[in-house]
């Protein structure tokens, strides 16, 4: 088995699916000759040619809008948006069409499309290159939202996303694109959409997160373990549809829940989880459900990004709070 990074696992997934099914095509800005600005499509242009690995003009609405119809026409497009902040020009196509074509045509037209992009902060990037827009997509019925946190899941989830009959927003945590190397099987395999993973078992408190924040939770749990607090960590993996059952079961065990994400607090995915947890686990709760998130501000330029991003320190102090409650 090869040891791959997340970005290599993404490429590997694309490669597997392209080799297997010629309906799969990749398109976007600089994905072809250049292999993508993060090299997520590196080598695919050489291998599959310009008709399947397509450098498009610079227009996100154009990329997504045409991909929707290519999907409806029977292809399986995997569109890359270069950065999180540049999904915004494509929102109209995603919200108004990708998410609704199936419903609008009562199943006659469907959109088996994947839109993948790097997201989140922590890489000293420019403005609009640090966004965590998962709430917008999750709030839009008809879209699925998938966020891996490690190489194995990245490959398996992306393959599932490509095979899924509905539009999937696939958000890749760019901060840890190359931070972790892990064993990834060479052949194709799937990690099912809609299933959370317990990445660490514990008894005192459940830390729920996704993407790059899973690693921050793990660091926190390591530190706290030495001090005698046992954290269970849930990697949500698919925000929509979300595997609430795994989350409830964990909280019924620990009685405490902390949700961690980079996106702003208000109406972030943590708000949905907190609401559901109190609806379903009220009597198991020993403390209020807390959220450690970005602030309700634009993501700051990089000199201050570490003030904004949830850190092990901020997560630890939330854990302390619920433990003391």
């Amino acid at each position: 088995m090869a040891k791959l990074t997340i970005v290599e696992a993404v490429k590997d997934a694309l490669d597997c699916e392209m080799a297997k099914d010629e309906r799969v095509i990749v398109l976007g800005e600089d994905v072809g000759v250049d292999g993508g600005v993060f090299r997520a499509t590196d080598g695919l242009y050489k291998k599959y040619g310009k008709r399947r690995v397509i450098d498009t003009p610079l227009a996100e609405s154009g990329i997504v809008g045409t991909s929707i119809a290519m999907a409806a026409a029977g292809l399986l497009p995997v569109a890359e948006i270069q950065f999180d902040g540049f999904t915004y020009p494509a929102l109209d196509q995603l919200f108004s069409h990708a998410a609704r074509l199936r419903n609008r045509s009562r199943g006659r037209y469907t959109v088996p499309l994947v839109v993948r992009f790097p997201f989140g902060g922590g890489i000293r990037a420019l403005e609009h290159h640090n966004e965590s827009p998962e709430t917008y997509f999750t709030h839009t019925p008809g879209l699925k939202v998938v966020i891996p946190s490690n190489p194995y899941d990245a490959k398996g989830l992306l393959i599932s996303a490509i095979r899924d009959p509905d539009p999937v927003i696939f958000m890749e945590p760019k901060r840890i694109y190359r931070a972790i190397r892990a064993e990834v099987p060479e052949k194709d395999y799937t990690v099912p959409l809609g299933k959370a993973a317990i990445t660490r078992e514990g008894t005192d408190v459940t830390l729920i997160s996704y993407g790059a924040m899973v690693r921050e939770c793990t660091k926190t749990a390591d530190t706290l373990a030495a001090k005698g607090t046992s954290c269970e960590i849930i990697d949500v993996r698919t925000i929509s549809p979300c595997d609430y059952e795994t989350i409830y079961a964990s909280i019924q065990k620990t009685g405490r829940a902390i949700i961690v994400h980079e996106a702003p607090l208000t109406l972030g995915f943590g708000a949905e989880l907190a609401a559901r947890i109190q609806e379903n686990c009220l009597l198991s709760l020993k403390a209020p459900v807390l959220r450690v998130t970005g602030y309700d501000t634009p993501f700051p330029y990089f000199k201050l990004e570490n003030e904004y991003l949830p850190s092990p320190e901020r997560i630890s102090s939330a854990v302390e709070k619920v433990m003391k409650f």
Partner: protein
Amino acid sequence: MERTINKFSVKYIQILDEKGNADKRLEPKLKPEQLKALYRWMVIERAFDATALALQREGRIGTYAQSTGEEATHVGSVFATAENDMVFPDYREHIAFIMKGAPIKNLFIHWGGSEDGMAIPDNAHIFPVCIPVGTQTLHGAGFAIANKLKKEKTATLTFVGDASTSTGDFHEGLNFAAVFNAPAVFIIRNNHWAISVPRVCTDLDWGGCQSRAETLAQKGIGYGMDCIQVDGNDVLAVYSATKQALEKARKGDGPTLIECVTYRITPHTTADDPTRYQDEKTLKAWMQKEPLKRFQLYLKRKKLWTEEWQRALEAEAKKLIDQAVKEAEAHKPKRDDIFSFVYAEMTPELERQKNG
């Protein structure tokens, strides 16, 4: 029946050839001080770029977009603006900020990773760096429409890259400017590349390029807008075309689209590796056409350039820039300012988050 109901053409102008010879009929009437000022700005822009690149290499600023090779397009056009004409830049026209009156240190603060760098003085008529490409076209149009409604005799100058002309906002911006006959001028910096995607199509059957149009200037025609293509490495051509367009705009005679043809002789940004996609020979050929050399030859012929003056200019630029770097690096952004500028008045919730 069949007849031609319309025909179009696009004018191209070059005033200085690559050897610095001027076309006398087109040469703008600029005073010696003005010609020297144009050159001075170009020297400052190049020096700024070299310093910024060096700082990036040392990790003292973040990802940076170089401007070397595009000086004539940036300087020639901004030099043509009146003080109150508002400029709408993207991310490559660093000198536009300086020419419009922003302290140089602000640029280093900005590229060094702080919004504080875009807190420029009120009398500097320029919008902040705009990264989502093409979007600023609508702002250039909208501001001009407002100027018109307010009966102000000022115009706007908006920059977009060649690839940005593929965005929807670019087209909407041109159309709005045209239908409102707005006092707006749009500069396309055609440097031939998006990041790795070329401006020109070689495969006429399957993408991989930005536009099949023979010129980008002609995109204005579809909106009923005057358009022109100029040699973007010829500072006099850029200046003249922009000057005329701005005057026309201020007189109420509508917007203009100016395509400046230049070449990106640097990587796209410091994060880019152009050897993956760029042809060395074309790059070398374009390097020969770079804008400073040719203007220098022109000034020399006019007896306005000496080696001594060049040295003095470079020394002046270095001093200004070194001082700016020092000031920028002394600047420490404040955590509270993550919250301070989101609304006119901080909401109680933001106050809580700030203190929490």
